[in-house]
């Protein structure tokens, strides 16, 4: 139990997908102008990462490993992820059309969000069991959502600040992202994954 908790904290905070592994940076910069959009993106990605990781674990264990088809790993994982994203897209379009409009191109782009494939590949590398893999994927995506929301909050405040003209827009956002990453370094040491 304690190991599980430590593993989850490690996945969410210490080895954060965005700030420690630098995965999923396109959505990190793209949809963090407003907190509600960022939270919506966080939920969507959390769902996709968790579901596709579970499916990927099953495919890896019962298909690829069992029949020695390791070379097909990337192709099959992408196939699974793409299906999960399609499903999420349909659901969001049905449930919240305005969120669908706001996420725009970034929603189908979850397919190519490296965080999703990254997490799937990490849990294969880590040779985790099913429960452990699911927990790891969920914790990682919660970490992703957390950073998305924090960063969106920062950018909302940043929009009100007196930023020198040369730094206005993405440059200052990257500077702030760097500072946020440094702040998250403070978590290293409380747990290791």
């Amino acid at each position, binding site marked *: 139990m304690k190991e599980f908790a430590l593993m989850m904290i490690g996945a969410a905070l210490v080895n954060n997908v965005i700030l420690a592994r630098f995965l999923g940076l396109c959505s990190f910069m793209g949809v963090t102008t407003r907190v509600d959009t960022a939270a919506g993106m966080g939920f969507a990605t959390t769902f996709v990462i968790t579901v596709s990781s579970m499916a990927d674990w099953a495919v890896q264990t019962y298909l690829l490993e069992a029949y020695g088809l390791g070379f097909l790993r990337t192709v099959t994982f992408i196939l699974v992820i793409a299906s999960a994203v399609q499903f999420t897209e349909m659901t969001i379009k049905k449930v919240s059309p305005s969120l669908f409009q706001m996420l725009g191109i970034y929603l189908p782009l979850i397919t190519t969000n490296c965080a999703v494939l990254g997490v799937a590949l990490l849990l294969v590398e880590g040779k985790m069991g099913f429960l452990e893999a699911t927990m790891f994927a969920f914790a990682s995506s919660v970490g992703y959502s957390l950073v998305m929301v924090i960063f969106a909050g920062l950018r909302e405040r940043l*929009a*009100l*600040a*007196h930023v020198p003209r040369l730094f206005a827009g993405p440059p200052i956002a990257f500077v702030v992202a760097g500072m946020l990453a440094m702040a998250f370094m403070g978590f290293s040491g409380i747990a290791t994954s």
Partner: protein
Amino acid sequence: MGFLDRFLKAPSWGVHPEDHKRPAADAPLRLFPSPERVFMPLSQHVGGAARPIVLVGQKVLKGQLIAEAQGNISAPIHAPVSGTISAVGEVTAPHPSGLPFKAITIESDGQDRWIETDPLADPFAATPEEVARRSALAGVVGLGGATFPSAVKFALGKRLKVGTLIVNGGECEPYLSSDDRIMRDFPEQVVDGARIVMHAIGASEALVGIEDNKPEAIAAMRKAAEPYPEVKIRPVPARYPMGSDKQLIQTLTGKEVPSDARAAEVGVLVHNVSTCAAVHKAIRLGHPLVERIVTLNGGAIATPGNVYAPLGTMISDLLAFVGLKEAPSRLILGGPMMGTPLLHDRIPIVKGASGILAFDAAEAFVPEAGPCIRCGNCTKACPMGLLPLEMAARIRVGDLEGAEAYALQDCISCGCCAYVCPSHIPLVQYFSHAKGELTNAERTKLRTDATKRLAEAKTARIERENREKAEAAARRKAEREAAKAAAAPAATPVAEQTQGASA
């Protein structure tokens, strides 16, 4: 009122600016000699502009009705001098934009002959409705600056069963002393007016709030109110903006007016001391509101003081009367905190004009604004408990809805935040800008909705017309065929044939 009360009961909001009221407040009241020409604007009040009922060339007496009220919230306008109507034209409005508005010009005959008046001997025997009606006919509006028609407020107070009348003698704005002067020179008028207003709204007590920096006014009012125990004189700490409705109500009664409610809904009604005096004159003497006390103050004025002047007098005439030491660097109508900056002095005084300030260069100096350092002084000063720095930051980047979420609409534009701001950010201008833009957006939305209804009505009408035309055409065709069939019974087989073909 112990010594400790000053600390324990002192409000935590607001600011305490240098009041600059003396020596102007101590100078005796001067009577302005009848001006040669007055310009009487048609909208000197909140609500619909008055409608002129006089013709050019017509002779009018002082106090004669020259424009009548139009709509539910409006006030009539009366001639402030006797003379001849010379024009119904436009004059620059006392407004920061310097845009013109409609006004009636009267050439004075210099005699100031009053029209025959119809005083009410015993107002307390008359019905409250009668008192309200007479106040409305006399054109009495709130003289503290809001210029809301008083009779409308009386009716509101009567309907909501207001128990307490608060008479606002706060006059917290620096430089101004017109209310101070009216309480010192005409305390009986103020007290009597307050009692008439109490009768009109059915209130059982009147609390007269006077800032404690006006001891002479407090003494004079105490003396005048002595025979009437229901009129209570209550000195309040001198603190800007004590003269604002919500702050004065809270200080005197401890009740807080909710954000989206009016004062009457917590059982109080606020009237200015000058308004009470105007009600007294309207009822006891039958005199409509045509004159008022105006403070003339500021570094550029040679003999600062208060002047009793007819409405519609040009500000340039008033300034010439008190004399100018130098050309004023800035002219303000009202107080320095909330007053209206004027672009020039060819502007008439209106009912709500409590003072004209002519500032010299040192007083008019405005330091350049710097960036916000988030010191939070403005949040401490704000009497409404708002966050001026957050609202201004959002307005600066154009996020007006964001500012609205921080309760921008509760801002009373008192200027405390801008006064304490160490970076001299023009916070009030940000808020005025945003409020104006939001009001315009709201108006545009209403307009769009109205035109949308019109467009839908037109579409529906055209559809109906087309349908009716088609129906009429079908009916005519049927009639024609019936007539044809009746006219040619011999040709029945042919008709049958055509019917069969069309079937």
